[in-house]
């Protein structure tokens, strides 16, 4: 859906980088679901399966010091950004070596070192906080950009409108990235959202807004390239509505009764991950053996992280008194 035929296109290196990030997301998601089925992890889990292209392409353009604020369905966003897998697994296992010492869990994973600043379980709340990080980036005189990830449902909550208005007024270096997977919890997009395209809402806030094919690396690449460049140049925020599909329902265990079976099957038949793999081979950017090796290395990394999480100790009860305030609470 990129307007211009001369839009920037990903080269072989970029496509391979996007593919590598997608594989890390998908393999990690698969490992989490397997561990849950086996009863090794007990946690609420909101899979990002099917939505990999969006954060993989965005993260391709981000530097280590760029920041993201994401939501409960956000592990794919963090893995794409580069959160280390060992403390991620320890955290979702509720262990002391987790990113948050086992006190946040999958819905509040945080890792400022890699720019994972906030993960919220509240729909819409990534956006107002991303603005503040953008304000700080601006005050620092830096070129940092901040990505606020959210879903289509969140574009109907007040925080979205307040945040876009302020970001536009203050020309903040923020990308508002809506991962429109067609459902807000169990409710279809058109039942909950008054506009055909969420990107049109950008008009109200005087910022550029685009509806992008979120499963197409080329379309994503062109739009993210422009939005990041605009933010780094101090010209302000962009709203990207990235159309995608949620393969595994709202929450793991959800039986998809509210979905149209044929629609879901059609979407899954267009799984962006095998498509990109086929393209890399067809265009001669990699061999089957290269990609098998890449996947095997990632699987080994995940297996190591999983074991690390399993072997990490559980947190002590004293943790209930710590991190409430900077100073420990009295016993």
């Amino acid at each position, binding site marked *: 859906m990129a307007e211009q035929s001369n839009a920037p296109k990903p080269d072989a290196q970029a496509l391979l980088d996007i593919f590598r990030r997608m594989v890390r997301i998908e393999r990690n998601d698969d490992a989490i679901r397997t561990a849950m089925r086996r009863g090794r992890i007990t946690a609420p889990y909101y899979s990002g399966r099917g939505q990999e292209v969006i954060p993989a392409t965005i993260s391709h353009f981000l530097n280590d010091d760029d920041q993201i604020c994401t939501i409960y369905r956000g592990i794919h966003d963090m893995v794409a950004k580069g959160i280390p897998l060992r403390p991620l697994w320890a955290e979702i296992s509720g262990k002391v070596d987790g*990113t948050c010492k086992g*006190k946040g869990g999958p819905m509040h994973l945080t890792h400022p070192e890699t720019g994972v600043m906030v993960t919220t379980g509240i729909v819409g709340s990534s956006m107002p906080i991303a603005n*503040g990080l953008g304000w700080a980036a601006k005050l620092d005189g830096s070129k940092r950009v901040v990505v606020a990830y959210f879903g289509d449902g969140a574009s109907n909550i007040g925080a979205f409108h*307040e945040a876009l208005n302020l970001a536009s007024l203050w020309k903040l270096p923020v990308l508002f990235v809506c991962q429109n997977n067609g459902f807000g919890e169990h409710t279809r997009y058109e039942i909950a959202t008054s506009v055909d395209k969420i990107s049109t809402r950008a008009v109200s806030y005087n910022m550029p807004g685009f509806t992008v094919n979120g499963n197409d690396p080329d379309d994503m690449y062109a739009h993210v390239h422009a939005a990041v460049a605009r933010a780094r140049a101090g010209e302000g925020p962009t709203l990207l509505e990235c159309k995608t599909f949620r393969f595994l329902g709202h929450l793991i265990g959800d039986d998809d009764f509210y979905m149209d079976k044929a629609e879901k099957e059609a979407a899954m038949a267009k799984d962006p991950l095998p498509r990109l793999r086929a393209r890399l081979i067809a265009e001669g950017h990699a061999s089957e053996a290269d990609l098998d090796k890449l996947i095997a290395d990632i699987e080994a990394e995940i297996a190591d992280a999983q074991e690390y999480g399993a072997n990490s100790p559980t947190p002590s009860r004293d943790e209930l008194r710590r991190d409430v305030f900077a100073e420990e609470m009295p016993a």
Partner: protein
Amino acid sequence: MSVMLQMNGIQAINAAMVEAMEADPKVLVLGEDIADPQGGGVTGTMKGLSTRFGEHRVRTTPISEQAIIGAAIGAALGGYKPVAEIMLMNFTTVAMDMIFNHAAKLRFMSGGQSQVPITIRTLTGAGWQTAGQHCDHLEGWFAHAAGIKVIAASSPADMKGLMLSCIQDPDPCLFIETGMTLFSPGEVPADQGPIPLGKAKVAVSGSDITIVTWAAQTIRCMMALQALGEAGISAEIVDLRTISPWDKETVLASAAKTGRVMIAHEAVRDFGPGAEIAATIHEELFGQLKKPVKRLGAPKCAVPFAKVLEDAYLVQPDDIVAAAKALMG
């Protein structure tokens, strides 16, 4: 001996802001009408700051409470120390998700990686006929939450000292102002520095009865002192200053000394902060009390408009005297 300056609460907080912003370029201010072209905030407490420190550090915002607190949280995560004005305490309810789910919890949920050193200033208090949605005392809501400190000073010197501490505190602080305390003059030492959070002040020493109070209610307790004296009652007034975490040590020491305790606050009495304090006193000092702890607070209704009803809604000096006499009886 430090030189004493005569000023009101607005001037005292303004002085704290100027000092804090001079000393630390990371201190920011944001809120509705906050910059000088808009008046320096609803009470003019931030007047002069945008002119002196620039509108990049002192920013007027749209009427968007979630966006205000969200921007403050994000800037804090980015290393700044924002002071956000939420014009009136009732408007904090619009930003409750940002305050309660995010500002107060990010440190804990991140296992100590994130800190949110923001100060939220907010105005409230009945007595101005602003009725049901402009003057509630909601400190109990925030005191119930883990991870946010709740401050309500009653004198200009305390306002300056506590504001300096809030700004430098590594955690979120809610700083409650009232019309009555902001406009009451008092003496402030010229070199007034930070006053530690979580420490109460024995505003008046006495031996018969302890009155625990804060914010504008402290002033109403002071107004009862003469009548209490005439009734032969020596009251000790403990100005709590910080509602959460509250100073158990000072309150329990005073309660142990007098054996009779009254808690007076402007918030609704039922489930109010006084209940927590009373329960703690009963748990800690049951055998030493001469009477059960008495709580005075507002009735469980919205703040009314009609002057006669508003006067009846508030805990007045006469109510305090009557309750003290009953405790002595």
